C-alpha cells in the first residue's frame, strides 16, 4: 500500500510541481498517474522512493512513513522501472536482473535460481540471455529485463515511470498484456506513470488524472470515462471517450446483458472472435473486415453466436452512456 497524505513538492525557484496530493494505492492494485507532460507525474513517483525530497506532507509505504525509513533500505524494497537507459550497459543481463539481490547479499545459488524463475516469468530463455549485454537486445526485450530486475527481490511495491513509453505501438501492447498477466500472478502494489490514455485505461485499477501538480480526478477508468468530474477531465479523454471505454467491456458482458444474434451462414469468410475479447477490439474488427458480423466463440472454439456493429452500439448506449457506472474492469 502507498498512501499520499497532503503531499506537496516545491522546487527551488518556486515551482510547485505537486500540490497537496491525497490518494492511496491499495495493496495489489495498479494506480496510473496520467496527465499532460510537466504535470508532476514523475516528481510524485520519485518522492515515493525518495529520489526527490518531500516538501510537505507524508508518504506511507506499507504503513510506514517513508521519511522514517533508511532510504537505501526503502529503495531495495521498491521495484523501480524507468523508460530507457535503466539497464547498466557494463553488466550482463544476469547481473543486471540480479542487482538488488546482489546488494542484499544473496548467495550465488539463490541468485541463479531466482534469475531462472524470473526469466521464465517474463518469457525469455534464461540460458540464451544470461551472458549477453543490454545493447544486444531489442527495446522490447530490454524493457522486459527492466521489469524482471524490478521484481528480482520480490518487493511488495513497484514504481514504473512510462516503462513502455519508448516502444513502438505493437510491441507496447504486447508487453502491456504480458505485464498484466504477470501482475495477476505477483499482485504487486504498483504506481505507474503514463501519458497515454489507452495505456492508462488498460492498465489501471484506478487512474489519478493530474494537471499542474493537482489531482483533477481519482477514479476507476470506467467511472472517469462515464462521469468526468470537470471540463478538463472530459476534454482530456476527448469526444471518443465512449469508444475508449469499450476496451473495459468484454463480448461476454454484452452477451450477458443484451445477448448475441444468430450468425448468418450465407456470409462467407467471416472472422471469429473470442468471447473474452474486449469490445473495442471487436468493434475495430467489425470495421476492418467491412462485414456485418463476426462470429463469437468460447475458449473451446464453440460458436456462441454473432456480434454486429448495431449490437455494440446498442450496448454502448444502454450500458455506458445510459446507466451510471456499471462498468467494471474485465
Amino acid at each position, binding site marked *: 500500500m502507498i498512501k499520499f497524505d497532503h503531499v506537496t513538492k516545491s522546487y527551488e525557484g518556486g515551482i510547485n510541481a505537486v500540490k497537496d496530493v491525497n490518494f492511496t494505492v491499495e495493496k495489489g492494485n495498479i494506480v496510473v498517474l496520467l496527465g499532460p507532460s510537466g504535470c508532476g507525474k514523475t516528481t510524485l513517483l520519485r518522492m515515493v522512493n525518495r529520489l526527490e525530497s518531500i516538501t510537505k506532507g507524508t508518504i506511507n509505504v506499507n504503513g510506514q512513513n517513508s521519511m522514517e525509513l533508511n532510504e537505501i533500505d526503502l529503495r531495495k524494497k521498491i521495484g523501480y522501472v524507468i523508460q530507457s537507459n535503466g539497464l*547498466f550497459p557494463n553488466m550482463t543481463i544476469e547481473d543486471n536482473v540480479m542487482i538488488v539481490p546482489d546488494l542484499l547479499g544473496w548467495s550465488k545459488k539463490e541468485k541463479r535460481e531466482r534469475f531462472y524463475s524470473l526469466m521464465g516469468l517474463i518469457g525469455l530463455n534464461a540460458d540464451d540471455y544470461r551472458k549477453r*549485454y543490454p545493447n544486444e537486445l531489442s527495446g522490447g526485450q530490454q524493457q522486459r529485463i527492466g521489469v524482471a530486475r524490478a521484481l528480482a527481490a520480490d518487493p511488495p511495491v513497484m514504481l514504473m515511470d512510462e516503462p513502455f513509453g519508448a516502444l513502438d505501438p505493437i510491441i507496447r501492447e504486447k508487453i502491456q498484456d504480458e505485464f498484466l498477466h504477470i501482475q495477476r500472478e505477483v499482485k504487486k502494489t504498483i504506481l505507474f506513470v503514463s501519458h497515454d490514455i489507452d495505456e492508462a485505461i488498460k492498465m489501471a485499477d484506478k487512474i489519478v488524472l493530474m494537471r499542474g501538480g493537482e489531482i483533477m480526478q481519482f477514479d476507476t477508468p470506467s467511472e472517469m470515462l462515464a462521469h468526468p468530474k470537470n471540463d478538463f477531465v472530459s476534454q482530456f479523454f476527448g469526444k471518443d471517450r465512449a469508444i475508449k471505454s469499450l476496451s473495459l467491456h468484454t463480448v461476454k458482458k454484452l452477451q450477458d446483458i443484451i445477448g448475441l444474434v444468430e450468425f448468418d451462414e450465407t456470409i462467407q469468410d467471416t472472422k471469429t472472435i473470442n468471447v473474452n475479447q474486449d469490445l473495442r477490439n471487436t468493434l475495430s474488427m467489425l470495421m476492418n473486415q467491412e462485414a456485418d458480423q463476426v462470429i463469437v466463440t468460447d475458449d473451446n472454439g464453440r460458436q456462441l453466436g454473432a456480434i454486429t456493429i448495431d449490437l455494440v452500439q446498442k450496448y454502448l448506449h444502454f450500458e455506458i452512456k445510459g446507466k451510471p457506472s456499471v462498468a467494471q474492469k474485465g
Partner: protein
Amino acid sequence: MQEWIRFLEVNSPRILELTIEHTMLVALAIIVALLIGVPLGIYLTTNEYLAGIVLQVASIILTIPSIALFGVMIPLFSLINQGIGYVPAFVALVLYSQLPIIRNTYTAIKNVNPEMRDAAIGVGMKTHQRLLRVEIPNALPVIMAGIRTAVVLNIGIGTIAAYIGAGGLGVLITQGIGRGDNYLIISGSLAVALLALFADGILLMIQKRYTRSNA
C-alpha cells in the same frame, strides 16, 4: 644504409637499455599520477567549487615549458639533496600527467547518463557502490583516453629528463647534439616516437578488451 647497420650493431644494446630506463621512468610516473589523479577526479565531481580551481591549476602546469619546469625542480629538490637526477624528473612527469587524467576522469564521471545514475540510486546502491559498479565502468573509455594522452605526453617530455641527469632516451639526443652525431639524434628520436606509438597501441588494446564499446 651500410652506416646505419654498423651504427645499430654497435649501439643497439645501449638503445635498448635506455628505452627500458625511459619506459620505467614514465611508467612509474604514470602509476603515481593515476593514484593521485583518478581519485581526485572522482572526488571533484562532488565538489564543483574545488573542481574549478584544481582543473585551472592543472591546466597552468601543463602550459609551463618542460625545460622551465625541470629547471624549477632542481633548486627545489636541492633542498633535500635530490636536485639532479631521477627524483625531480619523476615529479615533473607526475605533474604534467595530472591534467589529462584528472580532467578526463572528472568529465567522464560527470557525463555518465543521468538516467543510468538514477537507476543505480533507485535500486538502492550506496554512493561507493554506484561509483564502483556503474559510474566508473561506464566512464572507463574516457578515463583511458586521458591516461593514453598522459602516457604519450610523458614519453615525449621524458626526453628532457636527460638534461637533468635522469637518463632515458633523451641521453641519445643530448649526446648526439653535443657531438654533432646525427645517427644518435635520429635513433633517439625514432625510438621515442616508436615507444609512444607502441604504448598507445597497447593501452588501446587493454581498453578495448576491458570496456564495452557502447558504454
